[in-house]
């Protein structure tokens, strides 16, 4: 359920005097004026909604609208895996340090394990499954061709990372590839093959 029950002191605006008194080395009056003005125009409404307990939201996942039920603490990873049967993103580290749960949010690679589902309404969520299908993405094909996977548990996260990296750097050199894909961990040691797979995608122009 969604509630809007915020109580507060209203919008008192900002005290210009306080600002000046505390101004530091780079404080500039001109800067301050524009900011205070902007702040004063904001937020005259009743106050923001507060979400407590279970709530139903709609997420845009791989181009489709999906209704899911979440609590504020539910992570995107949990929703994908337990409600949408999208288990490509993996729970490897709880804090994103493995890259195992990499998905793209509005085209950018992020860790689904550290994103709250409730915060992603209206965002375009893309998971590794969108790169599969009857005509797999060039990165998926290159991973297979270069045997850039062993146990495969880190692989979906790595595939997403390579896809995101090459989307941004389609002409990446080998040195850039080696420098740019360090957010993911593989335990089986497939890095050498992943480098070759990424190089192949660059050469193939996809």
């Amino acid at each position: 359920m969604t509630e809007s029950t915020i109580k507060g002191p209203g919008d008192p605006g900002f005290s210009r005097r306080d600002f000046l008194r505390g101004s530091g080395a780079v404080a500039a009056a001109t800067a301050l004026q524009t900011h205070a003005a902007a702040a004063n125009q904001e937020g005259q409404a009743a106050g923001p909604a507060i979400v407590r307990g279970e709530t139903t939201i709609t997420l845009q996942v791989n181009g489709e609208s999906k209704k899911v039920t979440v609590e504020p603490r539910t992570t995107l990873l949990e929703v994908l895996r337990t409600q949408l049967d999208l288990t490509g993103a993996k729970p490897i580290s709880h804090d994103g340090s493995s890259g195992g749960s990499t998905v793209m949010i509005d085209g950018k690679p992020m860790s689904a394990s550290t994103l709250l589902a409730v915060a992603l309404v209206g965002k375009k969520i893309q998971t590794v499954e969108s790169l599969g299908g009857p005509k797999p993405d060039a990165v998926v094909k290159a991973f297979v061709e270069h045997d850039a996977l062993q146990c495969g548990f880190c692989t979906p996260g790595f595939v997403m990372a390579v896809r995101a990296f090459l989307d941004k750097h389609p002409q990446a050199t080998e040195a850039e590839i080696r420098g740019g894909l360090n957010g993911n961990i593989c335990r089986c040691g497939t890095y050498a093959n992943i480098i070759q797979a990424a190089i192949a995608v660059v050469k193939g122009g996809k």
Partner: protein
Amino acid sequence: MKNFEYAAPTTESEALQLLGDSSVSTEILAGGTDLVGLMKKMIVTPDRVVNILGIPSLRTLERRVDGQLWIGAAVTLDTLLDSPYLAGYDAVTQAIRGINSMQFQCQGTIGGEICQRPQCWFFRGGRGLLGEGGQAAANGDNRYHAIFGNDGPAKFVHSSRIAPALIALGAAVRVIGGAAGRGPDGADGEVGERLVPIAEFFQTPRHERQRETILAPNQLVTHIVLPSPAGIANATYEVRHGEGPDYPLAAASAALRMDGERVADARIVMGQVAPTPWNTVAAAALLRGRSIDETVAEAAGQAAVADATPLSQNAYKVQLAKVAVKRAILAAAGHPTGGF
């Protein structure tokens, strides 16, 4: 994770309303790269999480007429890296690059980066911010802990990788909220705004109720303000064990105001060596009036660590901090740093 209530304000004042409710404990959520992991492990257990990503004013990048760069606290690190505005702020660019994970860069924000909690394994292992009043680190494995400013209970090192660069460059943070800048004792409901020199933004907590910044629970960082980089040669050097987002073993940022070949003024700030970013006045003083070469940079590095007080297992960090300072200075002056 403890269940919490969640709100996503769309204005600064809404955010302050949500944060100012003293009947609940609150945490500010931006990218989530730090907070969500801490909540999962029940190290941080807020009643309410306030997501600031939806506040437009916090997502702006703006070059002011006077040359200042105003960076919204919720601007992501990759946006910054890709932006032309970072030209001239090499120390910041290099620090962000050092994070070395696309995912962290795309998800993490600059406000979150400077407000991230310590990486200290005692804190993250559930033994308190200070790790049993400092005893955990004093008696236990302190190989990654502080070599400066560690005489109190706080032995952790400040985690931010960008803060040393921001301090070296003379940045400030715009803080809004209850009695902005007056600290946690400010009266309820009193709202203000001020620019805090970023060096003063960080503090070494003395007890468990304090944090690593002066930010009170009802306050919010909205912007990081960088002065114009014109005439300031600057760089960051991190000593990293390997690739990946792992934190450096030691780091330094150098900002040099050059007068021809000579250094007119300098600010050198070390990272990962103390509970706050650590400004070394001695190194800066040594540089003034000199032109940079390897000998001078080496001497500055030496000066920077002369007063280090390593713990039982981290004397090696003194050498690493020295090298970081030396190489940051060389890099700022456009010389090869040595190393790989």
